[in-house]
């Protein structure tokens, strides 16, 4: 077990794993969903799944912002980038995401000016420095990045930077969790709650999970011990017949979140009636757009976007992966036609994507994958 050898808290992890094993009812299969792609990363990096008792499986959730962007939105963004005088600024993770008509890298090859930025503030700086260009920031992410986009827009407004706008694709985590709980065919026993999203929204918004669905959720950090701890606490709740929201990551996540961050999101953005998620389809009230009062910074109002719905490629099974129905290596093109260099689906692009996490870590090398898929 690689993980045990490499991890500095191996002793504690071993003890925790033993306690986890002790809590499992013999013969019962447990499924816990880790909502956040950061957890998926930890789980594969450290081989945590192998380390848990056989009855427990960890199911990957939709918490990878790049992965859930549907093809049509990528095409819309590329259509904006292709307009004259436009500089499109976006996070590096988005560059390779395939749309219906190629990725940003392809658009750049056709002459589009696309810049990789670390922060929306970098995009604002580009706008300040290029007053004769129209600079569009492609905003993606859950509540972890939405406040930064909102602050940047407020800043653009106060400075009167008129050539800056945002193509807003921010999504909210709660409706996605609800959609998964309501989707047939997936029986979950509990959740490992996202760490950093919760620094913004806090723990209260998860109360419907025990309240309406009777399932536990434990908000957790990103270290192997955090994830094991979350599994342990989930099992403990099940064993004791409880269902509650627990915060294992209290050292970072305040119960009420970050009120200032929530206030700036609310100042600048409002819920869209519907938004399409890759794999999950249209979900009501699940994404953010700019409020009327910030209309002049809204790329969707400034530019003509095709707004077409584009079906995922036939071979792509990201939807199943994002819902936790399929494991990455069960997708037919995993590691063959679909690799991080030539991704077919989004889950192979971002380091937070489940397919990329599987692919990138040595223990799931191509050979191992072939072996796994053969059986």
């Amino acid at each position, binding site marked *: 077990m690689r993980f045990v050898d490499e991890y500095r808290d191996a002793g504690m992890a071993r003890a925790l794993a033993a306690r986890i094993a002790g809590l499992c009812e013999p013969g019962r299969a447990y499924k816990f969903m880790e909502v956040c792609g950061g957890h998926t990363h930890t789980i594969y990096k450290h081989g945590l799944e192998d380390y848990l008792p056989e009855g427990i499986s960890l199911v990957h959730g939709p918490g990878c912002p790049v992965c859930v962007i549907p093809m049509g939105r990528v095409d819309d963004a590329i259509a904006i980038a292709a307009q004259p005088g436009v500089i499109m600024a976006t996070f590096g993770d988005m560059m390779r995401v395939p749309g219906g008509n190629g990725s940003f890298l392809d658009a750049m090859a056709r002459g589009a000016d696309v810049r990789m930025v670390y922060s*929306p503030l970098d995009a604002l700086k580009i706008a300040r420095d290029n007053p004769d260009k129209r600079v569009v920031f492609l905003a993606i992410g859950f509540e972890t*990045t939405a406040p930064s986009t909102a602050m940047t827009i407020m800043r653009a407004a106060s400075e009167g930077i008129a050539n800056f706008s945002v193509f807003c694709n921010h999504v909210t985590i709660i409706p996605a969790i609800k959609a998964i709980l309501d989707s047939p065919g997936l029986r979950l026993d509990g959740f490992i709650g996202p760490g950093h999203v919760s620094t913004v929204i806090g723990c209260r918004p998860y109360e419907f999970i025990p309240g309406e669905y009777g399932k536990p959720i434990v908000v957790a950090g990103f270290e192997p011990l955090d994830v094991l701890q979350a599994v342990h606490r989930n099992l403990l709740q099940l064993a004791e017949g409880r269902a509650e929201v627990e915060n294992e990551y209290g050292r970072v996540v305040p119960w009420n979140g970050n009120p200032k961050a929530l206030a700036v999101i609310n100042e600048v953005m409002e819920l869209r009636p519907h938004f399409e998620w890759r794999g999950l389809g249209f979900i009501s009230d699940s994404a953010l757009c700019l409020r009327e009062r910030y209309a002049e910074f809204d790329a969707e109002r400034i530019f003509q976007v095709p707004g077409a719905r584009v079906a995922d490629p036939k071979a792509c099974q990201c939807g199943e992966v994002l819902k936790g129905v399929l494991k990455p290596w069960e997708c037919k093109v995993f590691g063959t036609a679909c690799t991080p260099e030539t991704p077919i689906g989004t889950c192979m692009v971002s380091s937070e994507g489940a397919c990329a996490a599987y692919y990138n870590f040595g223990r799931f090398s191509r050979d191992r994958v072939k072996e796994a898929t053969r059986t």
Partner: protein
Amino acid sequence: MCLGIPGEIVEILSDRPDLAKVDVSGVRRAINIGLLEGEPLAPGDWVLIHVGFALSKIDEAEARSALDFLESIGQAYEDEIAALRDSVIEQG
């Protein structure tokens, strides 16, 4: 991008109270601290940074363990640090 990076505050810029200079794995950058309004920050404090904004204040032990974790994930963290280094966020 969903993973926060811990940074140690080196200086609060007096002319721009919404900005702070931080040290992230040896890279010094200005970041925006406007989302931590009401949270007193001083040099030596640690914050978790997401896309150029401090989202929460953390203690040093947490910062160290978060850094250990990030270093263990390799490429993705290196990319993030490289992007941070190139970031041009208003520097004071």
